[in-house]
């Protein structure tokens, strides 16, 4: 029994099931989906197997150890440095040929490798067979364990292999290269061992020198110009693939050929003409469901909230709590937080639909379908994936831009992603469209999504034209097999989002509601009866003139918009607290608010401008944080904030002024 913890790293190609396997061992609920690049950050967890402690690290997927994109660099660094004792190379058995290239590279590293043959169920479904005796032989005798991460089979066997093999420090030599290459490797190994007697895997270092790996050349320079006359990367790659073809020939058998289901579906979904319209119909359907079904469900929530609010007020009055405290709890917290909770059904439906899209395999196709349009904006179709994710939440969407290779493309994508309408703006649309647009409310809300997309596209286009640099369309993305979305995967995904929403309601929105309540009930003379004498009103009045041309010239709106920077839902909670509406999402609540707003001359056009402004203005605090972190540039982040403010104000002014002329 070992006292020490074994550090286990999950490495493998993108979308081969590493995270599903990691979740199965650690009980974690990390997001998984069926498109390459879901995991962009390494995640750690703990597990135990027969008393042995294991530290598991889930790494972003990579096709080879040569690093190109950020996620590849993260993984490579983590594996190469001594953080990992044993590598579990997760392999998609249904795409063995492509996956084995990384396997051969990992074997050369010299760390113990265990092959986890994932997706064996799919192999069977497709009428394929893998020779499980011959495969380990051809891979130098490393353990090969068939598993199904989804069905949770083979998990114990795999951990057993880890515990028993982690001490084998040297992986066997698997690929024998050509005489010329082996000669060069031998010469370099000799010199390296002389130069640095403590060097562990001289063969690997020699190969890295021969492919002119930058880090290697810098850290372990060898002066042998006749051996290192050029890069031999191509030779190494070709010979590895030649060996892989041998392996495939000897171990993979097709019992019967089946017309791949994926090809049939792709015939429709990636159709040259219909591909794009289908995508827009799919997205329209997603949002229609979000509003229509969400609307239907929310009634139950309102009843619950009404009862709760009444009960709290009754209780507080019965125990004779001070009036101001009752007001804080009922008008501040219950109105602000509770008001937001009634939008949960909409949020739930939205993420359920997005989870289906992501887990079915359609997401990657969107990159292909949108590549033509994105090409005109100087971006590849791959940049559209973060934008689609932005419909859910901007924070993970910004993180997803890591999959883009070029920093310039990344920044441009980060610039436009906040314009995609995220789920936090949804309560604003549901409320204001519901109050002012009657039977056209869904249409009004949908128009926000279209507007957001159009603004994003337009901004990307202008940025591209201003850039003037020759852009190259280097789309290169794997299109996974379609599959029936997995119930567990969807549940993890949706529950994660619902939990985020509830947490936000309990933290950010809770605190914001209390602060707003204080700002509105206290003024320079202490607690005030009339909100127009409060601190909030004073701040709001400063901004009122700026917002007036946009049809938003009310100090209350200014207060709501400022507080909305903490989280966009807070715009709605602010209105609840500002106008003392306890259940804003109910018909009575809406009527009460509409009447109060009407007194200020606030009508449908103003409501539309408010929705538009909320769509486009400063991203929420969490997004600002992640943009700052991902771009490592405060200047860029500040410019982006200013830019979005200008866009929002400009768009709202335009719509309001034109609207006033027409209506």
């Amino acid at each position, binding site marked *: 029994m070992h006292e020490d913890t074994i550090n286990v790293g999950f490495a493998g190609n993108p979308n081969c099931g590493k995270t599903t396997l990691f979740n199965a061992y650690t009980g974690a609920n990390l997001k998984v989906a069926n498109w390459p690049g879901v995991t962009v950050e390494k995640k750690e967890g703990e597990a135990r197997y027969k008393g042995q402690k294991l530290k598991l690290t889930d790494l972003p997927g990579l096709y080879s150890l040569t690093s190109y994109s950020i996620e590849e660099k993260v993984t490579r660094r983590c594996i190469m440095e001594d953080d990992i004792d044993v590598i579990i190379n997760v392999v998609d058995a249904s795409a063995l040929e492509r996956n084995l290239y990384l396997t051969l590279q990992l074997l050369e590293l010299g760390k113990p490798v265990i092959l986890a043959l994932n997706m064996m169920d799919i192999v069977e479904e497709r009428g394929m067979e893998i020779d499980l005796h011959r495969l380990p032989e051809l891979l130098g005798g490393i353990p090969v364990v068939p598993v199904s991460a989804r069905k949770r089979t083979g998990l114990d066997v795999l951990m057993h292999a880890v515990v028993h093999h982690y001490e084998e420090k040297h992986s066997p030599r698997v690929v024998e290269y050509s005489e010329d290459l082996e000669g060069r490797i031998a010469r370099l190994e000799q010199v390296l061992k002389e130069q640095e007697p403590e060097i562990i895997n001289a063969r690997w270092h020699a190969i890295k020198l021969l492919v002119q790996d930058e880090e290697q050349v810098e850290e372990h320079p060898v002066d042998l110009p006749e051996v290192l006359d050029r890069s031999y990367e191509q030779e190494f790659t070709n010979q590895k693939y030649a060996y892989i073809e041998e392996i495939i020939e000897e171990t993979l058998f097709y019992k019967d050929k089946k017309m791949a289901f994926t090809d049939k579906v792709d015939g429709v979904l990636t159709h040259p003409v219909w591909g794009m319209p289908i995508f827009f119909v799919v997205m329209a359907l997603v949002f229609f469901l979000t509003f229509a079904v969400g609307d239907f469900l929310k009634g139950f929530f309102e009843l619950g909230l009404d009862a709760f609010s009444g009960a709290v007020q009754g209780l507080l009055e019965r125990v004779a709590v001070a009036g101001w405290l009752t007001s804080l709890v009922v008008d501040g917290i219950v109105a602000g937080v509770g008001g937001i909770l009634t939008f949960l059904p909409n949020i739930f439906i939205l993420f359920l639909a997005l989870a289906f899209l992501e887990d079915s395999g359609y997401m990657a196709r969107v990159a292909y379908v949108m590549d033509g349009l994105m090409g005109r904006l100087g971006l590849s179709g791959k940049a559209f994936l973060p934008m689609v994710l932005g419909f859910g939440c901007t924070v993970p969407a910004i993180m997803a831009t890591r999959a883009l290779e070029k920093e310039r493309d990344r920044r441009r994508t980060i610039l436009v992603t906040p314009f995609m309408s995220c789920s936090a703006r949804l309560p604003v649309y549901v409320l204001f469209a519901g109050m002012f647009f009657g039977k056209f409310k869904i249409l009004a809300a949908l128009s926000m999504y279209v507007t957001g997309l159009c603004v994003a596209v337009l901004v990307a286009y202008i940025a591209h034209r201003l850039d003037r640099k020759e852009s190259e*369309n280097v789309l290169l993305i794997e299109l996974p097999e379609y599959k029936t979305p997995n119930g567990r995967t969807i549940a993890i995904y949706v529950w994660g989002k619902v939990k985020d929403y509830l947490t936000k309601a309990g933290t950010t929105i809770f605190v914001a509601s209390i602060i707003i309540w204080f700002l509105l009930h206290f003024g320079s003379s202490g607690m005030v009866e009339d909100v127009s004498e409060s601190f909030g009103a004073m701040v709001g009045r400063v901004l009122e003139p700026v917002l007036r041309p946009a049809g938003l010239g009310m100090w209350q709106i200014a207060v709501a918009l400022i507080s909305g920077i903490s989280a966009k839902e807070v715009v709605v909670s602010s209105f609840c607290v500002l106008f003392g509406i306890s259940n804003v999402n109910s018909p009575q609540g809406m009527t009460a608010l509409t009447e109060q707003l009407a007194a200020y001359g606030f009508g449908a056009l103003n409501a539309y401008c408010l929705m538009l402004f909320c769509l486009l203005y400063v991203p929420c605090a969490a997004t600002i944080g992640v943009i700052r972190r991902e771009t490592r540039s405060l200047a860029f982040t500040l410019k982006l904030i200013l830019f979005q403010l200008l866009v929002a104000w400009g768009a709202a002014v335009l719509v309001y002024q034109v609207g006033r002329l027409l209506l």
Partner: protein
Amino acid sequence: MTVLEGTLQEKYMVQKITIQEHILRRLEALGIIPGTKLMLMNRKKNGTCIIKVRGTRWAIGPMIAGGIFVEKAGEETAVEGQEAGEHA
């Protein structure tokens, strides 16, 4: 001819790839190298293609597609992946 001029659902073999070094390296790592068999699955008007190589589908932009030179695969060079089992 390049993948851009290929016929849909036709099987080809990669002859050579002329493209910037960093993209070439990437394609190599994915096993898209001279001698590799490739099937053209789909193509858009702007030249973005879906190809199937070694049993995996890839969407590639017009620039990459235009850099991959191919020739029709002969009878004896059936596309690997789907037909690999014929060795059995």
